[in-house]
């Protein structure tokens, strides 16, 4: 942090503060209203994920992954099972693949709804938050219908999923999509093109693409800077290559490319693309197939290691798994996208006003559970 000069002040934000999205502490050095340095202090939510994994069997790891990014648990399950299946060379039935993609994309919409709603709250718009939570609730209801849990699902297992789809699931999701798609226009009217919102977010906290790449920033934050990079498109895993969807990028519509508004708007556009994928998946969902058929009796991967990346709502979520042939992982490392996104905060908030830091932090969409693991 260096030496604090006489006319500077150190301001402590958090660990308990609503705008830090969890238990995050920011040590901010301010010069009047202007921020000259930020040091994020993390670890308040550290639950020894990686150490626990080394003492658990491979099946027992899945509920832990839920609790890392608790906003998008399905996507965390997904990344883990994709890595495990690649390591064990398991081919899962088509029906399972489609179910997984439906769940992952539903969870992506739910996660983005939370991110955008809370972001509105951060910059002072309370109403959109309520609207978006109302719609997110419908997705959680669908998950509850499927596996009984609303937040931490433990739904995807190595080789399959825990429950087959309930009766009437497809119609319920179609019903949700028919309801949800017109709502996006409403969000745009109420928040995206709101004059005050644009004033608060356009041209603020510009993240240039080369800085983003050097800091390992990924997902919507990277695409907000204009880099067209989406693992679902560029390194397809599961069956994403079968779907037709666009990768939206930030274009600086109301300000500079890579500003807070771009990062916000990319998420808004991504929800449209997710809805598109959902419609295709529902249409092609195979009617028959046992979802438990490919689940191995004993999970003992062969000796070796794997590094598998998947696209979670927050970016490149990767698992590095080292197996020594026993029922427990020898080493399991999770590469968390929110961790890298938070590390860039200091770089892009220096020189901005204190209230802008809250706007910048919110636009990065971090989840502390995943940062601290």
């Amino acid at each position, binding site marked *: 942090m260096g030496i604090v000069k006489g006319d500077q002040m150190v301001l402590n934000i958090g660990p308990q503060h609503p705008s830090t999205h969890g238990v995050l502490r920011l040590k901010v050095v301010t010069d009047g209203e202007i921020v000259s340095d930020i040091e994020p202090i993390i670890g308040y939510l550290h639950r020894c994920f990686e150490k626990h994994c080394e003492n658990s069997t491979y099946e027992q790891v899945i509920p832990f992954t839920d609790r890392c990014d608790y906003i998008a648990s399905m996507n965390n399950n997904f990344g883990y099972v994709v890595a495990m299946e690649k390591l064990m060379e398991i081919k899962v039935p088509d029906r399972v693949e489609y179910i997984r993609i439906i769940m992952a994309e539903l969870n992506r919409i739910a996660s983005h709804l939370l991110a955008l709603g809370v972001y509105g709250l951060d910059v002072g718009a309370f109403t959109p938050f309520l609207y978006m939570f109302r719609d997110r609730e419908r997705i959680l209801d669908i998950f509850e219908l499927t596996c009984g849990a609303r937040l931490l699902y433990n739904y995807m297992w190595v080789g399959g999923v825990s429950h087959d789809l309930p009766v009437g699931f497809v119609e319920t999701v179609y019903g949700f999509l028919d309801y949800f798609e017109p709502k996006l226009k409403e969000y745009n009217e109420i928040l995206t093109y709101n004059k005050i919102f644009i004033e608060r977010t356009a041209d603020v906290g510009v993240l240039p693409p080369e800085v983003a*790449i050097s800091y390992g920033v990924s997902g919507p934050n990277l695409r907000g800077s204009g880099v067209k990079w989406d693992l679902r498109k560029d390194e397809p895993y599961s069956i994403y290559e079968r779907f037709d969807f666009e990768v939206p990028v930030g274009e600086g519509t109301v300000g500079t490319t890579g500003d807070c508004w771009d990062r916000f708007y990319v998420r808004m556009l991504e929800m449209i693309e997710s809805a598109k994928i959902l419609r295709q998946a529902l249409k092609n969902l195979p009617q028959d197939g046992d979802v438990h058929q490919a689940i191995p009796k004993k999970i003992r991967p062969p000796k070796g290691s794997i*590094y598998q990346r998947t696209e979670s709502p927050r970016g490149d979520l*990767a698992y*590095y798994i080292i197996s020594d042939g026993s029922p427990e992982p020898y*080493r399991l490392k999770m590469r968390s996208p929110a961790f890298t996104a938070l590390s860039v905060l200091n770089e892009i908030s220096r020189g901005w006003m204190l209230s802008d830091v809250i706007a910048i932090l919110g636009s990065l969409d971090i989840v502390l559970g995943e940062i601290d693991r």
Partner: protein
Amino acid sequence: MTDNLEQLINDAVEKALAGDMDAINNIEDRVTRSKAKAALVKAKREAAKEQTEKSSDENSIDSSDVKQDLTINENIAELLIQQFPDDIIKELSSKEHIQIQSKNWLIISKYLRDDPACLFDSLQCITGVDLGEESDLEVRYNLHSMTHRHAVEIRISCLRNKAKVPSVESIWRIGDWFERETYDMYGIEFEGHRDLKRILLPEDWEGWPLRKDYEVQETYHGIVVPKVKEGWE
């Protein structure tokens, strides 16, 4: 009793070296099993070392192999061998990764980032690994290039008691936090890092939790830490 155990471990290791990992995995007792694994890693290291010595004696391995069908890792390894012949440990590298010496890692990483054939502009992940209670630690770097869309894995091993690896924080900015995390969990010192301190654990934490020989401290801030129970209750 102890003689019996040692005998059991030795037998299991011999079988495992012959390719039968089940011999070790079927050991019931968890402590014995991990001891056996550590012994196995050690045995393999020694075997690899012997091979290295042998091959350096023979010196000239035919290098005019067929160059088609090379994976990207092998391509990059070829490039690195031309540039830094002394730093690549060819014998321990494979199709999946390149093993290098730690000494010139900073120069090599700069080359990997800037050379037009490599252009690894993004450091994906740094993973620390403990190779077993009596062997070395290892740092694994997963690199990715946004231009060429290829990826490579670099591994650097370091001694358990003197764990030091050059820092690449100045090459890839995310190296800063990744290295702090690896330091936090394994106690590997990254030389040249501007602000190397714990990141996830409190600053006054004792020990390196992800090392296999880690023991929980007895008291923390005067509070007695409860003993870890075996298994789940």
